């Protein structure tokens, strides 16, 4: 039974593409395209100006080249920067009006978009190519004053909030891909939790790249006002295509006094085939700002997809007593490459951060943990603990650790440890002796290796992630 399941899952299960007519902006990157995007989204002038300013800046920026995974040059003029399902031109008022084909796609993906089939009350905002499709559970959330909608909607309905916070964590003048996103971002989620509110359910977004030749540039902005709490989930998939697709998202989190944001990602973009052809380039900028006192931001990520993953979810610990956490599992197989890690920038007093990173590489893949811990002179009595472990399967793959540790404060402590090893023969033997086949044994051991991180995920995600860990390593044993 299990063998059959594995057989079914062996190939990328989300590799279907949906046959929906798409409405695209003309190919290429120029002012007209930016104006086109802004116009079609009926954006106010300040936002268009903001985009154009980013575009001006982009002209002088160069693509960074210090990362480990190299990729062929991307022709930015050969991409579509806006793609929307055609039937979307007039936005549906409710779920009944949705294109049935879209609903079908989401059912295949297993997201309970349909409210009747809801999964224990997770509010979903699904982003399909560039447009947010529908947001469930709106009413319950609205009652509490929580705003959870697409960012385009937020621009229309809550411009003051967007204007106040957009670009405060990832400024226009940041690195190449972040600025590219600022210029052409299409959609994404917007969350605002009012003071003192504990969000009653997990908020969730599902991203999917459908159309070919499109880049997906979504922008997520989450603001947790004083004393509030929110847990946010993000999942990603894409159909199988031969060519590489670019995904350059920006995620900004802002936690004010006593607020807490928990951000979990399960990233399963199409990784390319066994020979490394195709797949998504996942170049994402994620950054959280602990702006207020006693605030907390926690990143949890399970990275199993994408041809190249290149991201460093970071925390800027500005408020006194603020806490930053980063839990990560990154699995690479076949020809996948990942360069991921985090940055913990301690600015406030008594700030604490914790980094747990588990990397597993198999096949011909390459995994790099790259992280920065920077304790500034004023961050008295700060603490950091970092642990990064790597597991290697076979001698064709690589596992690398590149931590940058800067301590400029004598009252602060930093501890860092890293190990690299393989699955021991003894453990494998023990499991097989008890009747597991080699693949199941590896799955079990790897799940144990990742347990510390998997525990951090919300319930519904943890189950999915555990399965994903097993699936990603299929074919890497023996």
């Amino acid at each position: 039974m299990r063998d059959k399941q594995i057989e079914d899952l062996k190939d990328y299960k989300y590799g279907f593409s949906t046959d929906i007519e798409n409405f695209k902006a003309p190919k290429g990157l120029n002012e007209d395209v930016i104006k086109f995007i802004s116009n079609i989204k009926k954006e106010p002038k300040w936002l268009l100006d903001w985009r154009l300013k980013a575009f001006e800046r982009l002209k002088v920026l160069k693509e960074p080249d210090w990362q480990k995974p190299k990729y062929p040059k991307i022709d930015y003029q050969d991409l579509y920067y806006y793609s929307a399902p055609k039937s979307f031109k007039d936005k549906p008022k409710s779920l009944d009006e949705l294109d049935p084909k879209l609903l079908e796609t989401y059912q295949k993906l297993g997201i309970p978009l349909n409210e009747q089939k809801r999964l224990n009350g997770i509010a979903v905002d699904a982003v399909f190519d560039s447009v947010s499709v529908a947001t469930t559970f709106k009413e319950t959330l609205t009652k509490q004053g929580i705003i959870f909608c697409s960012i385009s909607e937020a621009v229309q309905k809550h411009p003051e909030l967007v204007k106040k916070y957009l670009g405060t964590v990832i400024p226009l003048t940041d690195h190449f891909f972040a600025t590219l996103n600022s210029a052409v971002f299409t959609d994404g989620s917007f969350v605002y939790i009012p003071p003192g509110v504990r969000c009653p359910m997990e908020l969730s977004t599902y991203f999917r790249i459908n159309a070919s030749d499109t880049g997906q540039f979504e922008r997520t902005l989450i603001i947790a006002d004083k004393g509030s709490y929110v847990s946010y989930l993000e999942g990603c998939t894409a159909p199988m295509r031969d060519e590489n697709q670019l995904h350059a998202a920006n995620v900004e989190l802002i936690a004010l006094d006593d607020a807490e944001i928990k951000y979990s990602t399960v990233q399963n973009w199409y990784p390319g085939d066994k020979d490394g052809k195709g797949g998504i380039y996942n170049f994402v900028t994620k950054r959280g700002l602990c702006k207020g006192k006693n605030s907390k931001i926690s990143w949890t990520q399970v990275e199993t997809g994408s041809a190249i993953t290149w991201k460093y979810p970071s925390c800027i610990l500005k408020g006194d007593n603020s806490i930053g956490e980063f839990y990560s599992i990154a699995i690479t197989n076949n020809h996948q490459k990942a360069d991921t890690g985090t940055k913990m920038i301690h600015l406030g007093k008594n700030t604490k951060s914790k980094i747990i990173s588990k990397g597993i590489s198999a096949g011909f893949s390459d995994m790099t943990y790259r992280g920065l811990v920077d304790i500034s002179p004023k961050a008295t009595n700060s603490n950091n603990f970092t642990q990064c472990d790597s597991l290697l399967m076979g001698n064709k793959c690589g596992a690398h650790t590149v931590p940058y540790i800067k301590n400029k404060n004598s009252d602060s402590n930093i501890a860092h440890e890293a190990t690299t090893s393989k699955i021991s023969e003894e453990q494998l033997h023990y499991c097989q002796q008890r009747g597991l086949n080699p693949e199941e044994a590896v799955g079990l051991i790897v799940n144990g290796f990742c347990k510390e991180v998997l525990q951090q995920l919300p319930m519904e995600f943890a189950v999915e992630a555990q399965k994903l860990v097993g699936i990603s390593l299929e074919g890497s044993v023996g």
Partner: protein
Amino acid sequence: MEKQLKIDFEKKLKDFSYSDQEKKFKETNFKEFLKQGFPNRKLENWKFSDLNQIIKSNIGDLTFYNDYKKENQIDKIELINELEHNKIIIVDGKIEKIDFKFEDKDKIEVLVEQGEETIKENINSLINLNNAFSNKFCKIIIKKNYSLNKPLVVYHSTNKNTQSKNTNSRIDFKLEENACLRLIDIFKDNSEKNFLNIYYNFELDKSSILKNYKIDKATNNNVKYSYNNVNQEANSISETFILSSGSKFFKNEINCDLLGHHSSAFVNGIFDLDDENHHEIKSNINHLVENTKSYQLVKSVLEKKSKAVYQGKIFVSSEAQKTDGYQLSNAILLSENSEFNAKPELEIYADDVKCSHGSSSGSLDENSIFYLMSRGLNYKEAKKLLINGFLLDVIEKITDEEIKNLIKNLLGVKE
């Protein structure tokens, strides 16, 4: 600076009659240096120590020409008295004296050459600078099965009136099968504000043993860079110990290629820094074949505005199964202005390996101080005792008893 470089280089070429090959070698290196200049923070290896900036702010404009015909006085240089030793004395980059008086003359060969192409690739622009401006570089061969009776001490010194000068020196060592060399580098500066650039090249044949101890203790305002390249054949052992303390700026770079089975490399270091000193150790241990071992331990004690940097890299190629690599760095920051930066890096392409690293930095443990004070010590004594124990860990790693005692005395560390 470019103008000065060109003038000095022309002058240098005129001083000696170089063969066409040597001339070409020097010119290629010179052009490469002109192109790259001094390393700056844009280069990954120099991220934490911008040498270009350091030279600018500490020295200003450098000159590069040294008159190698001039005899330098060497009798004023303070020698080590505690220990009988062979010696090499280098003044302003010029080797003034080579003395192996305790050794069997047939077993040691000293070649003085005008320059020879032995470099595999461009390492960094400072090696180019060294190749272009260093004088004769000397090659010392220790014959098969010979183990030196006494350690060899290399004194790196400068003339009193030397100022704002760049001096370059290079020595190559070849240890034949089963040979053994104990090498101590001591820095004795008579001048200030110079940039010393030192390049060592070691070839370790089968079963040979190299022990290199670098001692930079005397306070001075010079800027120094030292590069050790070690190629190791089967069963060879290299041990490097660095005491980094006195200079204004000092970067020690160790590159070890473990090319033979069961070869091992040990790199240990102590940063004992004060004032505004800024020191760095950068190690590159390349495990290239099966069954090799490396071990690194670096401890720092940082006072006032000092800054220490440790960049340690372990590279394991896909052939190097059964590698054992370990790296640990600990730092104690004693002042609110001191700074410790580390980049312990692992790059691993083989699966059956045991590699790990650890790094920590922080203040002295208050509980331990309290414990000692409750036993009647005052704060100063307690602090001293704790630091003493902290550094002793590294000193105990020194395998040569004589030299271990010498270093203990220098640091004032007791057991």
